[in-house]
């Protein structure tokens, strides 16, 4: 089973990378962009026996840094 983990910066945490992307998009002539936040997407291929609790623990222990990041876990049907 595929699991998609989205990691994003917490609201209020400054995102220099997002700001640079925002600036670059405007430089290309795109207008109307109000904010850009850059995150990270991690896809895992896991056995069906892996529980939600285990996935949550993986996020808390390694995949996300809870000081600055939030995460969400989505199981993708095969």
């Amino acid at each position, binding site marked *: 089973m595929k699991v998609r983990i989205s990691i994003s910066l917490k609201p209020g*945490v*400054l995102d*220099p*990378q997002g700001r*640079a992307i925002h600036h670059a998009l405007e430089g290309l002539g795109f207008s109307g962009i109000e904010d850009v936040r850059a995150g990270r997407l991690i896809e895992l291929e896991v056995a069906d026996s892996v529980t939600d609790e285990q996935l949550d623990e993986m996020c808390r*222990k*390694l*995949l996300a*840094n809870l*000081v*600055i990041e939030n995460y969400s876990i989505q199981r993708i049907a095969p």
Partner: protein
Amino acid sequence: MSFRGAVVTFPGSNCDRDMAVALEAVSGTPAIRVWHGDAELPERLDFIALPGGFSYGDYLRAGAMAAKSPIMRSVAAAAERGVPVLGVCNGFQVLTEACLLPGALMRNASQLFICRTVPLTVENSQSLFTAAYEQGQVVRIPIAHADGNYFADEDTLARLEGEGRVAFRYAEPVNGSLHDIAGVLNEAGNVLGMMPHPERAIEDALGSSDGRALFESAVKSLVEA
């Protein structure tokens, strides 16, 4: 009793030799070199240094993989026992990722890798790492990092400031760090993480000898202990 200082090398560390040279120059005893995959640290260590570099290629987040390597369990246990632990640059990132220090180090506000000597204010000259400095002294120590932008939530910042745990502060804005924080101590005061490289400033031939007092402070604290 001779000083037993160890330097931990992770795959991608590149300041480990400089750190070992600095420790030996100040203590007079060669540093013990430890590999990240070792399960245990050598016994009876007086000092542990986590060096700068790009451990594991900065994969995931700077310091994140190294923080979970086998040797870090042993480092955490030693820190708990009160052994002085110094993390410089990537070593600081490893210490925050290992939750031995609060906060996180994010990409510099400028998005640029910054490599230059910067002025730092010694904010706490009472710690075992900083006792040889004067309170408020401004020292010049090089930095070389892309991810040195210190972040912590407001409660944590207030606690760090209130408890005198900001060891060093940039004397001018450098990388976007909140409160211009360059180095922080743990609650017990035996773990210091800092982005600037004191080991690159131990003699005038290197451009500055202002980092030497940090190692002298640590060695002296052990002799007096």
